[in-house]
């Protein structure tokens, strides 16, 4: 109620200050994966740019692409494969910035299953996330020549839930993990790193671009919206760089924003440390070569490709060029 009143009060004052509203939809629940945005908000970087940013956490049933299509957000955090898939479905998403330079996705296997290299996946059960995150995996398997329909000689794919139980319960030989999250849950559960074999998508040459910022193309044509996004990206990147430099403080800010109160300091601090490795080396500008690599990986996606043709206009440097100019 108090927040609401202050909000109303501020809105009344806005005639002079003109704070612009921006709504950001995250891809998943509040965690250090999105630290840059929470830091930018807590440290007042958005405010300095004259922005009033609302950050909406995601969840297992929330597709950021659908939220932005429904007008529930101005800008969303999403992975490039699912954004490109949405673009082919007729939702013109454009990447305006790419704070994550490299991919954090891995396949983590129990050493006791005898898996040493990717060709050993044959006839094993692999856990994969779906909801738009399955595309890199499917193209990788198709490049390895492994069928994913359960036929002999191929792999059996399981849709894994939101945790690492399938590996701990030995229901799957390998599961999908992120360097900054699930991998550590396996370690926390008492399995030693030497008992695990890990394949990073980045090392396997099948990495796709993860957390990027996407907006709708037609809105971008409006100079006022473009200006707003320039400010937003500039402040967000400032947030990210601050988070990289002060990981512990950033983790505490994230924890502060977790409304479920179920997250722990230990998890978030570690996650922040790992996320910083992925954002390092990105100033926010999209590396076009990496984006083209993503497209190439997806187009190699076998019988049921995510996208059927290379997209045009799926990314723009217009925002980052201006945001990074000064």
């Amino acid at each position: 109620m108090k927040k609401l009143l202050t909000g109303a009060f501020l809105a009344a004052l806005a005639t002079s200050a003109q704070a612009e509203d921006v709504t950001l939809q995250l891809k998943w629940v509040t965690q250090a994966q999105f630290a840059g945005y929470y830091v930018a908000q807590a440290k007042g970087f958005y405010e300095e740019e004259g922005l009033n940013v609302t950050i909406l956490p995601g969840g297992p049933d929330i597709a950021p692409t659908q939220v932005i299509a429904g007008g529930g957000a101005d800008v969303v955090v999403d992975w490039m494969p699912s954004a490109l898939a949405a673009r082919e479905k007729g939702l013109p998403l454009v990447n305006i910035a790419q704070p994550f330079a490299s991919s954090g996705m891995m396949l983590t296997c129990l050493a006791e299953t005898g898996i040493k290299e990717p060709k050993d996946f044959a006839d094993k059960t692999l856990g994969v996330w779906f909801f738009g995150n399955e595309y890199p995996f499917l193209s990788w398997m198709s490049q390895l020549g492994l069928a994913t329909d359960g036929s002999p000689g191929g792999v059996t794919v399981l849709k894994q839930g939101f945790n690492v139980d399938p590996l701990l319960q030995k229901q799957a030989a390998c599961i999908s993990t992120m360097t900054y999250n699930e991998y550590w849950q396996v370690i926390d559960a008492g399995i030693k790193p030497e008992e695990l074999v890990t394949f990073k998508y980045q090392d396997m040459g099948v990495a796709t671009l993860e957390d990027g910022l996407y907006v709708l193309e037609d809105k971008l044509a409006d100079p006022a919206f473009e200006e707003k996004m320039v400010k937003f990206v500039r402040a967000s990147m400032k947030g990210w760089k601050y988070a990289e430099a002060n990981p512990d403080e950033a983790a505490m800010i994230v924890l502060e924003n977790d409304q479920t109160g179920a997250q722990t300091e230990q998890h978030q601090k570690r996650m922040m440390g790992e996320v910083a490795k992925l954002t390092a080396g990105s100033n926010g500008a999209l590396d076009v070569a990496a984006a083209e690599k993503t497209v190439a990986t997806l187009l190699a996606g076998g019988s049921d490709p995510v996208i059927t043709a290379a997209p045009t206009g799926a990314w723009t440097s217009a925002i980052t060029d201006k945001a990074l100019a000064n």
Partner: protein
Amino acid sequence: MSRVLPVLTVLAGIVVVWYLGAVWLNSTWVYDQAERAGTTVTLAEVIPQTMAQERPLLPPPHQVAAELWKGVAGQAVTSKRSLVYHGFVTFKGTMMGFALGIVLGVALAMSIVRFRVMDMSVMPWAIISQTIPIVALAPMILVVANQVGVQDRDVPKAIIAAYLSFFPVLVSMVKGLRSPDQMQLDLLRTYGANEVQTFVKLRLPASMPYFFASLKVAIAASLIGTIVGELPTGAIEGLGARMLIGSQFGEPLIMWAALFAAAILAGMLILAVGAVERFARARMGVPA
């Protein structure tokens, strides 16, 4: 005493089975760990280790109780780590959905009893509506709510809760409003009562026992709807959100504590509805 003792016996039986299950399920992990370390363990060593794991497959009752106590009494009720706080968030959603469900159920029942065409066309679809898996609709409700400009995520939650809770109210109210028999209706006609008077003086009072009986079912359905709404759609706060986060971060204790908090909430809601029902029955002079 004769009512409490059997319940206590059954509960004690459940706790015993639970402990046995905990030993059985959690021991796999202990054996696996021993195997990885290259040692063997005896059963006597295994049992204590199954009682205090950080990520048990089935946490024993005392671990859940401790976590529950920590969440309820160990925090200020305003803290977001408090189960009381999250229980209240879920309670709010439940009540909003419950109120919405009652209004919808009663309104539909009234028009169904009044208009034959409503009865024939709407009633079958009301039944079909309950066979649609509401979880599948949850993301759509969220997006459509966004589309019409509702940013507050309590609203989609309440809609899901109302969707589940209107049905028992509707069914009971239709039965209740139709419960006066022909003789009573004829009597009112001889008094020269018009339709509105018949409704207010006969049909509505006659339907009250049915109405209150349906409330218990409706409140439970509403709670389920709220938790389902909190689980997948932008887990922000509430018991459902804590279940999700507990599952995602491999913290079964958080999940179990949230589950039991939900059970306690359900118990309190049903008791409260029962009390309202008894009060209303007493006021109306219906023998309990």
